[in-house]
């Protein structure tokens, strides 16, 4: 019985990890939509505004990948902090991709939400 429960829990954990993995790109594009930010700021925003607590070891290579794909561009800016900061901003392609992905995400979440509403109602009762 215990093993069935733990298998179920680990399955849920794996599923959640997969779910989060699937929207990493969209989350970063969304955070950079209004303004340019540097790595540590992106991590802080993720922690503050979302449930996506990503590690620095995940975010920096992800930023490098999005840049290699032409969705982001970067520039070094001398800061008062005493060391330069690498700021990232969306390119025109990145903005188009963000719109596309956000639209798809919204439609998908809404249709799955409709499908799951009886399940959630049952749980409340």
């Amino acid at each position: 019985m215990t093993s069935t429960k733990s298998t179920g829990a680990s399955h849920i954990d794996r599923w959640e990890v997969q779910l989060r993995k699937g929207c990493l790109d969209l989350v970063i594009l969304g955070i950079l939509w209004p303004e340019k930010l540097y790595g540590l700021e992106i991590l802080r925003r993720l922690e503050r505004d979302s449930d996506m607590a990503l590690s620095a070891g995940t975010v920096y290579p992800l930023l490098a990948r999005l840049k290699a794909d032409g969705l982001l561009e970067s520039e070094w800016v001398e800061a008062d902090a005493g060391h330069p900061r690498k700021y990232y901003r969306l390119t025109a392609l990145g903005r188009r991709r963000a719109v596309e992905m956000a639209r798809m995400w919204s439609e998908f979440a809404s249709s799955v939400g409709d499908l799951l509403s009886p399940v959630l109602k049952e749980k409340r009762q």
Partner: protein
Amino acid sequence: MTTRTDSRIDGFLSRLRAGLRGMPEREIDDILREIRGHIVELSEAEGSDVDAAIRSLGDPVDLAKTYRAENLMVQAECSGSPLVILQALRHASRTRAGRFTATLLYVFGYATVIALWREAVHQLFAPARTGLWYTPGSAWPLTFASGGAVPAGSRELLAWWAIHLALVVAGLAVKYAVDHTARWWLRRYRHSKPLSAPC
């Protein structure tokens, strides 16, 4: 920053640099500069110690592997070098059997390209012995012969230059197909596997 904390940051960065070896030097410098900034700012601004800031990045070897893997995929998508593409294919294959199969298929594809081009070169030196031969009355009336014995009573159906051109074009077509398929698979792999799991 004290000398001791500096040495801890330098230690982390030198391990990271070692792991990034093979990537373009400019990109390595860029990564190290960004990661140093992260450690310094996190440890100074938030009052956490340097060790905690370093720990937030995980193992430098793993971090370097993630950067390198990504760099390899990008290079394979842009590079014309079969070795780079093969290296990326091997990296993207999750199991030993997958690595073996990917290597075998890719090497087989290139072996076919080399064989076709070898024939093209050979055909230049032995035009009379290379061609598509038609032998009336034979069980196998059509034979492609290259440098070997010409079937008795047969005649050649194509001009030498047509065979030469066909071999060169066939070699190019196979090369394109092999590289294109490999890159298509790598692109699919890359976009289906967004780095490591969130922690």
